[in-house]
C-alpha cells in the first residue's frame, strides 16, 4: 500500500494555515536572534499574518472542493472567513501594540504571539473541517491556545481564574464531543462528515442521536450557547482586552462556520432524498432545535447583560446574544437545499444562509473590534473597566465617546450602521421558512429591544452622568468644566485612527457595502452525488 503525497494543487489551498504554522515557529525562535524584544516577534507575527492573508485571498476564487482525502473542504465560504480572520487578527495585534503591549513582559511576548497565531490557525482549520477528526483537532487547536491566552495576565487573580474556568469547562466539553465523535465513527464506520450525515439521516437510532448530540455539545461550548455558556463572562472579564476581542469574534465566528458546515452536511443528505420523509422530519427537528437553542441563548445573554456593571462582561453577554442570533439563522440551513423536500416545501438555499452568516461576521468583526479597542484605550487612562468609571468620558475624550456610541448603536442594530443590515439579512433567511421563521423573527426583534437598554447604559455614563469617574489628580479631573475638553496626547492618535476605520467600515456596510461580496462568496461545498449543484444565492 503506497501512501499518496498530496498534490501541489491541494497544498496550495492550505497555504494560509501553513503560513500561520511557520509563523508560530518563527515567533518562538526570535529570542535566539534578539532577546527581550517586543517589536521583533510582533513584526514576525505580522509578516506571517500578511502571508497567510495573501494566500487566503489568492484562494478566494476556487470553487468548492474536498482535499486531503476528505479531511478539509476549501470553498469560497471557508476562504472568505479565513480572510476575515486574518484581517481581524492583524487588528487585534494592532490593539495589543497600542494598548496592551506594556502589560506583557518581553520574555512572554513570543509566547503570546505564538499562542495567538496558533489559535488563528486552529480557527482557520475549523472553518474548513469536513471530517470528524479534523473537527476535533481543529477545535482543540483553536481552544488550547485560547486557554493559555486567557490567563496571560499572570499576576492577577482574575486572569488565573478566567484561564482555569476556561480550561476545566473546555476540557469537559471537548471530552464529551470526542466521545460523541467516537460513537458516530463506531456506528457509521466512517470519519467522513457527508458519510456520517447520510447514515444519520437515513437510519436514525438513539445511539446515533446521542453521538450527534455530544458533537453539538462541543460546538455549543465554543459558541457559548446556553447550557455551556458559563465560561464566557468570566473568561472575557479576566483575560487581557486584546484576547477578549480575539475570542469574542474569531472563536465564535469559527464555531458558527463549523456549525454551518455540519448542519449543511445533514441538510445536503436530506436534500438528496436520503431517508425520505422520515429523514426530512428529523432535519426539521434538528433545525428547530438549533434555532431554539439560539433563541434561548440570545434571550439569556440579553437579559443578564442588563445587570452588568463591568463593560467587558457586558460585551461578553452581548457576544453571547449575537452568537444566539447567528444560531437562529444557521439552524435553518439544515432544511435548505436546491433539491429534494427542501426545495419542494421551502425556498431556502444554503447560499442564502452562508452569505448572511458571512455578512454578519464581517460587521460583527468591526463592531466588537471597535468596542473593545475603546475599552482598552479607556482602561489605559481611567484604569478601570467598570461602567461607573466611564463617567464624563465624553467630555474628556469626545473621540472615544462618540466612537463607542457608534459601535454600541451598531451592536444594537441602528439603521444606517452595519449591525442593522446584518440582522436584516438574518431575518430574510428566516422569512423563507414559513411559520417557524416568523416566530424566530419575533424573538430577534424582542431581543434587539432588550439589548437597547444595556447598549445605551455606557452612553448614559459617558455623556449624561454627572461627575467624573477617576480620582482628583487624574487627567479626567482637569477636564471638568474646561472649555477645551479633549486632552491632546491622552489617547494615542493611532488608536483613534483604528477606531475611525472600524466606524467607517460599519457605515460602509450599513449602506450596503460588502453584501455583494458576501453573496459572491457565500457558497458552501456539497458532496458530489448529493445536492447536485452548488447554487449561488439568488437575490434576497
Amino acid at each position, binding site marked *: 500500500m503506497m501512501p499518496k503525497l498530496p498534490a501541489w494543487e491541494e497544498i496550495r489551498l492550505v497555504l494560509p494555515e501553513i503560513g500561520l504554522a511557520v509563523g508560530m*515557529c518563527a515567533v*518562538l525562535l526570535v529570542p535566539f536572534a534578539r532577546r527581550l524584544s517586543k517589536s521583533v516577534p510582533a513584526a514576525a507575527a505580522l509578516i506571517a499574518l500578511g502571508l497567510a492573508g495573501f494566500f487566503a485571498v489568492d484562494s478566494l476564487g476556487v470553487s468548492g472542493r474536498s482535499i486531503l482525502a476528505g479531511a478539509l473542504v476549501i470553498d469560497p465560504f471557508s476562504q472568505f472567513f479565513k480572510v476575515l480572520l486574518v484581517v481581524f487578527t492583524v487588528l487585534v495585534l494592532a490593539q495589543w501594540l497600542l494598548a496592551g503591549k506594556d502589560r506583557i513582559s518581553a*520574555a512572554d511576548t513570543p509566547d503570546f504571539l505564538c499562542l495567538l497565531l496558533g489559535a488563528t490557525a486552529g480557527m482557520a482549520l475549523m472553518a474548513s473541517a469536513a471530517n470528524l477528526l479534523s473537527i476535533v483537532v481543529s477545535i482543540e487547536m483553536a481552544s488550547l491556545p485560547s486557554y493559555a491566552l486567557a490567563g496571560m495576565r499572570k499576576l492577577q487573580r482574575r486572569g488565573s481564574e478566567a484561564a482555569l474556568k476556561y480550561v476545566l469547562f473546555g476540557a469537559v466539553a471537548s471530552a464529551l464531543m470526542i466521545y460523541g465523535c467516537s460513537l458516530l465513527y463506531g456506528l457509521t464506520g466512517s470519519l467522513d462528515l457527508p458519510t456520517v450525515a447520510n447514515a444519520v439521516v437515513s437510519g436514525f437510532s438513539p445511539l446515533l442521536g446521542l453521538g450527534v448530540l455530544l458533537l453539538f455539545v462541543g460546538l455549543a461550548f465554543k459558541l457559548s450557547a446556553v447550557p455551556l455558556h458559563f465560561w464566557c463572562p468570566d473568561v472575557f472579564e479576566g483575560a487581557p482586552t486584546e484576547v477578549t476581542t480575539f475570542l469574542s469574534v474569531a472563536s465564535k465566528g469559527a464555531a458558527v462556520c463549523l456549525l454551518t458546515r455540519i448542519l449543511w452536511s445533514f441538510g445536503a443528505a436530506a436534500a438528496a432524498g436520503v431517508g425520505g420523509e422520515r429523514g426530512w422530519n428529523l432535519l426539521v427537528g434538528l433545525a428547530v432545535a438549533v434555532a431554539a437553542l439560539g433563541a434561548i441563548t440570545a434571550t439569556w445573554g440579553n437579559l443578564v447583560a442588563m445587570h452588568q456593571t463591568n463593560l467587558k462582561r457586558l460585551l461578553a453577554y452581548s457576544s453571547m446574544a449575537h452568537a444566539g442570533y447567528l444560531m437562529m439563522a444557521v439552524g435553518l440551513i439544515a432544511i435548505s437545499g436546491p433539491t429534494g423536500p427542501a426545495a419542494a416545501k421551502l425556498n431556502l438555499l444554503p447560499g442564502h444562509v452562508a452569505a448572511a452568516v458571512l455578512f454578519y461576521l464581517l460587521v460583527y468583526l468591526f463592531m466588537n473590534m471597535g468596542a473593545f479597542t475603546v475599552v482598552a484605550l479607556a482602561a489605559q487612562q481611567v484604569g478601570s473597566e467598570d461602567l461607573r468609571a466611564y463617567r464624563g468620558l465624553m467630555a474628556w475624550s469626545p473621540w472615544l465617546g462618540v466612537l463607542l456610541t457608534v459601535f454600541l448603536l451598531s451592536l444594537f442594530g441602528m439603521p444606517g450602521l452595519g449591525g442593522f443590515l446584518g440582522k436584516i439579512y438574518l431575518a430574510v433567511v428566516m422569512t423563507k421558512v414559513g411559520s417557524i421563521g416568523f416566530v424566530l423573527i419575533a424573538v430577534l426583534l424582542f431581543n434587539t429591544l432588550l439589548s437597547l437598554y444595556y447598549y445605551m447604559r455606557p452612553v448614559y455614563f459617558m455623556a449624561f452622568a454627572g461627575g467624573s469617574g477617576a480620582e482628583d489628580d487624574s487627567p479626567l479631573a482637569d477636564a471638568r468644566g474646561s472649555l477645551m475638553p479633549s486632552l491632546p496626547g491622552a489617547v494615542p492618535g493611532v488608536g483613534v485612527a483604528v477606531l475611525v476605520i472600524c466606524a467607517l467600515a460599519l457605515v460602509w456596510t450599513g449602506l450596503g457595502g460588502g453584501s455583494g461580496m458576501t453573496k459572491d462568496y457565500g457558497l458552501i461545498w456539497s458532496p458530489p452525488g448529493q445536492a447536485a449543484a452548488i447554487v449561488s444565492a439568488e437575490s434576497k
Partner: protein
Amino acid sequence: MPTLAQTEFSHFGPLVLLLVLALGFAFGNLILTHVLGPHRQGKIKGMTYESGMNPIGTARRRFNVRFYIVAMTFLLFDVEIVFLYPWAVVFPSLAEQSALRPLFLARVLFFLLTSVIAFLYAWRKGVFRYD
C-alpha cells in the same frame, strides 16, 4: 467496517480477561490485606513511611514549578515517541525500491523538527536550568 450489529464480541475476550485479572488482583490484594491482616494501630506505627527514616517536616509545602515544567516537556516528547512507533513499523515496507523513500523519511523528520523547535524554545526559556 462492521457496524454494531456485526461486531464480533468474542474478539474482546482477551481484553475482558486482562481487565478482570488486573482489577481482580489489585482489589483482591487490598481486600485480603484488610481481612487477613492484624488490626493494630499506634502513633509510631501510623507515621508516614519514608523508607525507614524519620520524616522531617510536612509534605504540604510549595514545590518549585520547574519540576512540573520538566514533567510537561517529558510528556510532549513521550507522545512524539508514541507517534514514531507506527511509523517505524511501516517505514521499511514503504516504497521499497522507489526514489520516494527519502521523502517519507523527510516527512517524519519534519514532524520531529517541530518538536525540536519546541525543545529549543523551552531551552531558551530556561526550563533546563535547575539552580
